[in-house]
């Protein structure tokens, strides 16, 4: 029942007019709010980058288009156009025939379409009937329904088959109609086809420009808010990465990299130019040879971006993606200074002013341009570009070095050589040779006074030492701290010398220092040692600092020890890497005389020798005793102990406290565990677990690490800490560049949580190479030899000593392909001087390699050159004619002028006044040493095996233009007819039977080099002198002629 409306005026609870005004105002306000929201959602930075990239791409394409249009020959084009016009005229002339043909073709197409549809429908019906028939028969094979369904299946099958015939006929009719039409249109079509070919690039670029069009209405509609859900041209670009994960603690989620949404040019060549494309985000990845490119070892589709760079994979916002600037700490420092300056002037705090003034830092610019901030919720931000190679280490930590990542390689070398890995366990950097000398017999090498002074400051003795400084650092920098430090040093020295084995060494004859110097400069010491006061430490490319800097030895060791050491380093230290140079006693006497005369750093001897402070020592002993005993007992013990006992007690505790035994072998600490924190996954360590103390640092892993590596004790600043609690890490005196290098490695120490298929495979040839490189690094082969195109640093010293570089240790290049592995094995096991290059004064020393290492090295060389390993074909029968021809050719080419063919020949050559600079390796032992196949190849193209070799290129390359297979010519062929070669020609004719045969031989570089090889192979080769029945293995050699 409807009620009557109330009488007017209606009484209202509110003032309706006012309410309407409020309604109007809020309704108007809701519109801008909505627009703002839409804009917030729609206006993403990545869209503007994509727009800008499209603009760049268009400019580039336009340039390419112009270039392409210039390339087109206008005459040819005009001709084709004319032909096309002619075709059109022709078509007009035959108008009726053409239209008839067109009509016919349309009709035929219609008929075919109809028959094809019929054919497909029939097939579907037949398939259904077959299925029905099959199921019914399975259920009840004998029933009537089986019979009827069989019937209907067969009927439909027949219909299907007949429809096939109809369809095929219709198609044939259509084809012939089309052919008729094509015949009429031929002239025009041909012209069009040729035009397309001619304008190929031009058309392609034009088509691309069309797709890049940014200013037509369709583009705006496609990318308009909301409408952009259909088919936007600006869109998120992503790649799903199989086997790469985000660790979300309870599960792993697949990585989906969206970086190229902004870095859209990364994969495209042609955007490298920094001038043309100033925004780095729109440039091509700088190393497409290694990354991103689908042909590189790290293709984008497999590895994406974040697996190397770090950062948040799905983010498309600058700060959220985890970009990290290079100079965050510097920015904070500068900003702090500027802020302070404003405070002092009484100006109000103004963040903008600070930012304005921050243009000089990358951080400041990022804040200004991209609203950059630290995303504190991002556990793994990107590596800053200065440490970008950290990403390599995540997977490549098992490699021995990183030749393609210079900074990482440097960091790794620093960690290996300075011994970071000894205290801090690092996966992939384990089981390396000890970094510090063995101290189990230190008392028979040096004096306690020297050791104590050394401990105070190792660099005072040797500026380039790798031993870090443990004492007199900032967290002990008080008077009491100094006394305590001296007490500790005295204790450590006392302990080391008390526990040390004591051996005495035989006396050394008085030698001649000048002769010693000669020896020092010639025999090869300088491959690993320098002897320079004040030299700086070089770890990268510091092969000559592999061993200690040989200065101040007279302060440190006795001549007897030095003599014994040089005679046999293993007698003093069984685990030393110092090789044996097989020096004679008189050589040793001379060397000792020279080395003992080398100068020392002047301040060292004057520096104070620490002595224990009694009060501090008692306190220290008491402190340690209370850890296991009650206060009363500890006090009683302190009172009971003699000063010597106290020193030894303190020494043992301090060695344990600072973990000296991690680098040095020390008696009593054989089983002690290193004291450092494991760093294997430090790159994943949550930042909040790092103690920044009272230091004003940005809270990032990188900044914490830089501080720790540069000033390891600085986190104690302003803290009240007991002796036990104080930081213990020693001072390595790293330069800022070195810190950055080490930081790069340590930041890269992360979990390798990825599918096994993506991990570096440490097996096969790769493993052999890495194991070999490890040994090369540990034994400093590159100090003397240029190996893998690096090292050979002894040449620097030789140049300084004015020694001919022809006397330098050989360059090792293609060694695996060159020498037989079993020869290499025995040579490295026990090298003998004077076999191959007797004129060399520098000696290949005897290294303390064990059989595993020897196998690893031989396998390494073979793997480097992909050569056969371990055994080489044993060629013991040669083609007699080839060998004879080789001998004659060897003579004709005067090979023996440089290459002595036996030790006797070498002696004769020296007698004849030849100098080493004229001589080449003795060939007598070639068949024991070289690979048979390699010899011929070497003779053919020595300049490729070893650029700069003195071996002449007898068979120059023929330049047939690029892309052609290499071909070499024999300049001997035309020379054969010259009178100088008359005898040679006669010999060859005699060997080969006819002049034509002889010419064919001499004109073929392959045959000549093989013949020479056979001759070289036969030199000093006993088993070849007895004629033998051809052996199975030799057949290949014979058959080749």
């Amino acid at each position: 029942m409807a009620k009557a409306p109330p009488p007017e005026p209606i009484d209202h609870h509110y003032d309706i007019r006012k309410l309407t005004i409020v309604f109007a105002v809020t309704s108007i306000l809701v519109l801008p709010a909505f627009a703002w929201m839409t804009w917030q959602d729609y206006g993403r930075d990545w869209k503007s980058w994509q727009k800008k990239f499209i603009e760049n791409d268009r400019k580039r394409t336009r340039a390419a288009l112009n270039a392409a249009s210039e390339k087109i020959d206008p005459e040819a084009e005009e001709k084709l156009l004319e032909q096309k016009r002619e075709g059109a005229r022709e078509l007009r002339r035959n108008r009726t025939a053409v239209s008839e043909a067109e009509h016919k073709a349309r009709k035929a197409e219609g008929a075919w379409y109809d028959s094809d549809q019929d054919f497909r429908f029939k097939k579907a019906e037949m398939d259904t009937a077959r299925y029905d028939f099959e199921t019914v028969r399975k259920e009840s094979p004998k029933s009537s329904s089986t019979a009827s369904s069989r019937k209907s299946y067969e009927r439909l099958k027949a219909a299907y088959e007949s429809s096939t015939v109809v369809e095929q006929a219709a198609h044939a009719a259509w084809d012939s109609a089309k052919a008729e039409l094509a015949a009429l249109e031929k002239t025009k079509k041909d012209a069009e086809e040729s035009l397309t070919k001619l304008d190929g690039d031009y058309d392609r670029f034009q088509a691309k420009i069309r797709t890049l069009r940014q200013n037509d209405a369709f583009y705006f509609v496609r990318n308009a808010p909301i409408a952009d859900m259909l088919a936007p041209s600006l869109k998120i670009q992503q790649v799903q990465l199989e086997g790469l994960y985000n660790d979300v603690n309870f599960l792993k989620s697949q990585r989906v990299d969206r970086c190229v949404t902004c870095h859209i040019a990364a994969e495209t060549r042609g955007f490298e130019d920094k001038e043309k494309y100033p925004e780095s985000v729109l440039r091509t990845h700088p190393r497409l040879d290694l990354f991103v490119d689908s042909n590189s070892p790290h293709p984008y589709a497999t590895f994406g971006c974040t697996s190397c760079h770090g950062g948040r994979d799905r983010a498309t916002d600058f700060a959220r993606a985890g970009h990290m600037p290079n100079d965050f700490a510097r920015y904070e420092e500068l900003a702090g200074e500027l802020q302070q300056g404003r405070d002092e002037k009484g100006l109000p705090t103004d963040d903008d002013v600070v930012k304005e003034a921050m243009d000089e830092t990358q951080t400041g610019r990022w804040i200004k341009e991209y609203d950059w901030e630290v995303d504190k919720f991002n556990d793994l931000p990107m590596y800053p570009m200065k440490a970008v190679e950290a990403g390599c280490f995540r997977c490549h930590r098992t490699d021995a070095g990183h030749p393609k990542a210079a900074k990482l390689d440097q960091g790794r070398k620093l960690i290996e050589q300075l011994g970071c890995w000894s205290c801090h366990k690092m996966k992939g950097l384990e089981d390396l040779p000890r970094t510090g000398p063995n101290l189990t017999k230190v008392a028979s090498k040096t004096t306690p006074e020297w050791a104590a002074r050394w401990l105070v400051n190792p660099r005072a003795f040797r500026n380039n030492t790798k031993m870090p400084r443990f004492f007199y650092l900032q967290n002990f920098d008080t008077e009491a701290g100094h006394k305590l430090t001296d007490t500790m040093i005295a204790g450590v020295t006392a302990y080391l010398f008390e526990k040390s084995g004591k051996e005495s060494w035989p006396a050394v004859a008085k030698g001649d220092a000048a002769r010693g110097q000669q020896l020092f400069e010639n025999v090869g010491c300088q491959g690993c040692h320098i002897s320079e006061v004040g030299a700086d430490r070089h770890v990268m490319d510091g092969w000559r600092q592999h061993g200690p800097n040989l200065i101040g030895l007279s302060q440190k060791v006795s001549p007897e020890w030095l003599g014994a050491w040089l005679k046999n380093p293993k007698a003093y230290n069984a685990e030393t890497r110092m090789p044996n140079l097989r020096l004679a006693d008189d050589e040793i006497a001379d060397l000792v005389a020279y080395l003992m005369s080398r100068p020392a750093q002047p301040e060292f001897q004057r520096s104070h020798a620490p002595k224990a402070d009694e009060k501090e020592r008692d306190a220290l002993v008491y402190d340690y005793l209370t850890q296991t005993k009650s206060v009363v007992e500890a006090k009683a013990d302190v009172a009971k102990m003699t000063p010597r006992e106290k020193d030894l007690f303190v020494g043992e505790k301090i060695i344990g406290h600072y973990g000296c035994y991690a680098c040095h072998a020390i008696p009593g600490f054989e089983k002690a565990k290193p004291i450092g924190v494991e760093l294997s996954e430090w790159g994943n360590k949550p930042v909040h677990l790092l103690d920044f103390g009272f230091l004003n640092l940005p809270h990032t892993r990188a900044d914490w690490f830089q501080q720790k590596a540069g000033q390891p004790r600085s986190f104690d600043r302003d803290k009240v800490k007991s002796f036990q609690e104080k930081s213990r890490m020693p001072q390595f005196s790293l330069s800022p560049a070195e810190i950055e290098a080490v930081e790069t490695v340590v930041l890269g120490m992360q979990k390798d949580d990825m599918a096994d298929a993506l991990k570096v495979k440490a097996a096969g040839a790769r493993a052999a190479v890495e194991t070999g490189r490890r040994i090369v690094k540990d034994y400093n082969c590159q100090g003397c030899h240029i190996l893998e195109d690096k090292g050979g640093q002894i040449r620097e010293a030789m140049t300084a000593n004015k020694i001919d570089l022809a006397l330098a240790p050989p360059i090792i290049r293609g060694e695996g392909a060159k020498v037989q592995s079993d020869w290499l094995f025995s040579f490295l096991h026990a090298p003998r001087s004077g076999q191959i290059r007797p004129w060399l004064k520098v000696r290949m020393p005897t290294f303390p390699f064990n059989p595993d290492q020897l196998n690893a090295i031989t396998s390494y060389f073979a793997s480097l050159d992909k050569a056969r390993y371990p055994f080489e074909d044993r060629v013991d029968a040669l083609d007699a004619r080839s060998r004879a021809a080789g001998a004659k050719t060897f003579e004709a080419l005067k090979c023996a002028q440089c290459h002595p063919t036996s030790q006797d020949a070498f002696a004769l050559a020296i007698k004849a006044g030849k100098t080493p600079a004229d001589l080449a390796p003795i060939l007598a032992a070639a068949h024991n040493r070289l690979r048979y196949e390699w010899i011929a190849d070497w003779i053919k193209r020595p300049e490729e095996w070893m650029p700069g070799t003195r071996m002449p290129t007898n068979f120059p390359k023929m330049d047939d233009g690029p892309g052609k297979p290499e071909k070499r010519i024999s300049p001997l062929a035309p020379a054969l007819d010259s009178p100088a070669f008359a005898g040679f020609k006669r010999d060859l004719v005699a060997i080969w039977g006819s002049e034509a045969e002889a010419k064919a031989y001499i004109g073929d570089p392959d045959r000549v080099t093989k013949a020479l090889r056979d001759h070289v192979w036969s030199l000093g080769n006993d088993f070849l002198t007895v004629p033998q029945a051809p052996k199975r293995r030799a057949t290949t050699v014979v058959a080749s002629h």
Partner: protein
Amino acid sequence: MTALKDIINWLASPAIAVTLSMIGLVGAMFCKPLWTKKGGLLLFATLVGGFLFSFTDPNFRIVATTPDNVPILGMLFLVGFFFWYAMYQAHLNDARLALGMPPLEKEDSDKKVFSWPDLVYVELVSLIVCSIVMIVWSIVLKAPLEEPANPGAAPNPAKAPWYFLGLQELLVYFDPWMAGVVLPTLIIVGLMAIPYIDTNPRGNGYFSFRERKWEIVMFCFGFIILWVVLIILGTFLRGPNWNFFGPYEYWDPNKLVPLNNVSVSEIFWVKWLRTALPTFWLKRELPGILLILFYMGALPGLLSKTLFKRFYEKMGMVRYFVGVNLFLIMLAVPIKMYLRWIFNLKYIVNIQEFSFNI
């Protein structure tokens, strides 16, 4: 300035803050001039002034502008406004009732209006205003999304949603079964029981203070002090490691505060009787158990004869005992808090054998 901030930091420490807010609340409720429009403006101005002053402090700014904490700032103003409004209306009505006039609500309820426009129009406008506020809020303050939860690295401080921060604060003083199960259950049961315990018909349907002073003071104590104040404490004054920080103090994760708390059994046996703790738990905890039995068992009866005689007579036995028990439990919360603050009392009953601690 610094001295003033130091004083405020000191005043904000839990014991003082809770005491002051209790005294302030009860005192204010009886201070008539506050519940006028002028008084309201004064309260509002004080609150706003306090915030403006505080916002000059960088540490306060960090905490107050964290997106999670912004709603609590809003709540502060809303609770303040509605509390003032209720008291304002109550005092108006009290004045009218004193003159023998009916309450304002009586006049209102006699009037009839249409749902449109009087109700629906206002709702529509509210809807629009709320939409604008929500949109702008969501744009200006980004959702505080963090990294995936990691049980190995909990955030510090780990905080409950803001509306549970009062309960989380109770965890400082009680074991989880008490603070997280028993007390919240009793809050709900107690709120449900109110209509059955409070049968006073006066004040039904209209604001009045004078007619239900005791009830209103009790409710406000429970809601404002034990709920809202604890939320504010938990939000703004509890920092890393759940340490207490003054409003202008830097949230230093390394701040150390001693937690030297003792139980009743330790006080009784070791400090008073100077002997070792009995090994049998019942003997050891007997003093605490007796205290609890006295508080929950004997005290209601004693009170019915003395302090609450009036209530006992008015409400009858059943209502009285249910009501007074609920009241005592509510009171137990601040009592335990004060015992902790003043005597470092950890547990009254500490039976670790069964993880039963009060």
